[in-house]
């Protein structure tokens, strides 16, 4: 029992360590953002107050933030999971769209099913659609060795246009530029149905599903044979092959699972928020944001939850800053700075340099330098 506790403590400690640097980078980015706001003649205090009140000011606002967070957790998880197998899934976008379309189709066509079953089928259909979309890219890589980045980008556009085609034909709400609405039995439970406090927010059960999926992904990656093999292929395919691990199978599997997460994101977004799919002029951005979320979350499922929350706050609070007369682009800039700091490992390098300098200073004190 004690060992078990130790184990939990250990992995908690490791997780904390892994997110410490990104966390510091975030703080530094906010400071840099403050200087920027000040330089443009506005008050950083007013700006950040608007940002945080706008995103977290009351339960309704917080609820809306969490709606965005829900999607970002899942697309972030999707990118992070593939990365653990050494794959860059830049196609979360297309997998998200396929998930939405599949969810709308099942949610609309299977009207009449009991609610819980219908919801479940809707989500599973979405996840599978995303999984197949990404799994195909993985299969191409395993079969003919073509690069997943290029293929998944191409698949994004196929998804976009396929979705638009279906929405304007078989799924079309006559005379409109969007699909049919899903049946009430396919809709996710909303917090506003039971809690007065969330009356003006669309917050739905999806947030809990997303967090649960993230925890499951963490377990899968770090505690199971499948995770062991996926990570092993990610770090060293040659040694994995030597260890009797089927590298190609794991590439397909990792892509497929990665796609499940993005597809689920699309399905949850449809069944919880939109209830239909619009004819899209361009990509939604949820998938691409997933890349940022994964990066800031250090590709760790738990880190992804936290970083998705951060991005949710930034995206929902931004417009509030605008009301205060501060350009909402500042939020975009802060997001950019965060990514820059995290991607460049800025904090890690600074900490190392500080430590080295300290050593030299200590020597100076001891009088060892001429």
């Amino acid at each position, binding site marked *: 029992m004690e060992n078990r506790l130790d184990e939990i403590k250990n992995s908690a400690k490791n997780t904390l360590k892994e997110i410490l640097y990104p966390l510091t980078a975030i703080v530094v980015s906010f400071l840099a953002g403050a200087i920027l706001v000040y330089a443009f003649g506005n008050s950083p205090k007013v700006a950040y107050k608007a940002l945080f009140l706008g995103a977290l000011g009351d339960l309704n606002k917080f609820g809306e933030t969490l709606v965005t967070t829900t999607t970002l957790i899942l697309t972030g998880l999707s990118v992070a999971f593939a990365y653990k197998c050494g794959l860059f899934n830049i196609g979360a976008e297309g997998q998200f769209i396929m998930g939405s379309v599949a969810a709308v189709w099942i949610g609309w066509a299977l009207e009449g099913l009991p609610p819980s079953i219908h919801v479940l089928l809707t989500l599973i259909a979405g996840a599978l659609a995303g999984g197949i979309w990404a799994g195909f890219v993985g299969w191409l890589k395993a079969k003919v060795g073509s690069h997943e980045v290029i293929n998944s980008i191409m698949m994004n556009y196929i998804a976009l246009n396929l979705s638009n085609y279906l929405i304007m034909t078989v799924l079309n709400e006559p005379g409109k530029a969007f699909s049919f609405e899903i049946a009430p039995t396919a809709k996710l439970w909303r917090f506003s149905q039971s809690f007065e406090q969330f009356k003006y927010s669309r917050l739905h059960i999806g947030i809990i599903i997303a967090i649960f999926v993230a925890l499951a992904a963490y377990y899968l990656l770090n*505690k199971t044979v499948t995770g062991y093999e996926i990570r*092993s292929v990610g770090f060293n395919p040659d*040694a*994995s092959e030597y260890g*009797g691990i089927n590298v190609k199978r794991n590439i397909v599997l990792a892509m497929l699972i990665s796609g499940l997460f993005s597809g689920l994101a699309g399905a949850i977004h449809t069944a919880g928020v939109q209830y239909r799919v619009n004819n899209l002029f361009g990509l939604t951005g949820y998938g691409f944001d997933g890349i940022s979320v994964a990066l800031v979350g250090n590709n760790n499922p738990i880190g992804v939850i936290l970083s998705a929350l951060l991005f949710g706050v930034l995206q929902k609070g931004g417009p509030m800053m605008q009301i205060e007369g501060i350009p909402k682009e500042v939020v975009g800039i802060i997001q950019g700075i965060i990514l820059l700091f995290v991607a460049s490992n800025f904090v890690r390098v600074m900490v190392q340099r500080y430590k080295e300098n300290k050593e030299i200073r200590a*020597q100076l004190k001891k009088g060892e330098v001429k």
Partner: protein
Amino acid sequence: MSAVIEMKGISKSFPGVKANDNINLTVNEGEIHVLLGENGAGKSTLMNILYGLYTPDEGEIFVKGKKVVISNPNVAISLGIGMVHQHFMLVPPFTVAENIILGSEPRKGLSLDMNRAIEEVLELSKKYELKVDPNAKVQDITVGMQQRVEILKTLYRGAEILILDEPTAVLTPQEIKELGIILKSLVSQGKSIILITHKLKEVMSMSDKVTIIRSGKVIDTLKTSETSIEELAEKMVGRKVSFAVKKDDAKIGKPILQVKGLKALDNRGLEAVKGVDLEVRSGEILGIAGVDGNGQNELIQAITGLRRTEKGQVLINGKDVTNLSTKEIIDSGLGYIPEDRHKRGLILNFPLYENSILGSQRSKKFKKGIGMDYKKIRDYAKKLIKEFDVRTPSEKVFAKSLSGGNQQKMIIARELDRDPVLLIASQPTRGLDVGAIEFVHQRLIEQRNKGKAVLLVSLELDEIMDLSDRIAVMYDGKIIDTVNAKETNELELGIMMAGGRSEKKH
């Protein structure tokens, strides 16, 4: 002779280890001074301190009698210290001259003065008899030549004192001889050289003086002319080392590995193994001798399932395993020490405990419910670490932070603990020091004595001759002949390795 480098009382600790403990080192002008020690003894740490890559915790450094603080490599370079790393730092598509001037380019106005660069390189090359072509691309020249480019790079920057880190590890015997000549010519023109190595033969043939380091401490400094290989080995390892491998007569049993008419292709799709027949029986070591690149790697990969067998058959214990997956072959009783521990043997970014189960990750032993039993896996790793004397602070350390010898021990521990009927060891002592080599040899003999079939592939003829009961010589994808180890000699094997048939009939 005056001292060019004096390091006094140098200490440096890393978390968990004292890499250098009060080290004193004096290098005189115009001498080749070897730093001898096993992997992880602290040689490289000491040299990295001298080159400014590490800051010492304690101690003083004097260059030509002047006290200095070397806070980074630029300071070292300005003091006339140059370092040639074990892994070359060259830009392959650039020419020799471009690589040499990189970072201190001669200019004419705003533009690069390439002609002057080439002239200067030629001049230096002539002066020290390095014979490099400044216009050749680095990717087109041999490893030995690349090393000379590295040496030239330091000379171009005005190095008076050259540090060479394991310079012979990547060279062929011929190239090693040439390097010896180059070093002699350098010191004859007033340069001083510090050589890091753990190879005793080279110490004897190349150096004037040798300082032996063990566990971070200086054990002794000797004149090379007044010592012997045996004395150096004993001081380096800390006990008497037997170079001869003791083994009883083989108790040969039934055939374990049978290879029949095996053909396999290399990475370019050319036939590399051209019909090989082999048999390894229980209780014997079969050594495959041969010059590198004669199909040995492809043969082993075909046997272990890492490469397709185009034609022929592989049987383990009578079971046909031809073109089965590596997993199935492992499950049929294969243990395999691969030729490249970084590429194949370990996942460097995994902790030791995760590495300790590579190959048996799907075993029921390590399963608990739908997950893996990490508690048990860590205990298992601890057990292996203890039994095979892997030097590491704990099982949670990443494989990449272990020394080569200890990485190899970890691999051997893992492969032997699976209790395989067939053990394939491919260049199992490559890059290891004396102590570790002895350890590996003992383990292989031990497996043979236990009645396992051992297939040994090595480019070191000494190793093959010491360990094997029978020796198969491979040349151009074929087995030229299989001879009894007791009834052959270096000359006969050498002839066969070059493709000639032996006179005797076996």
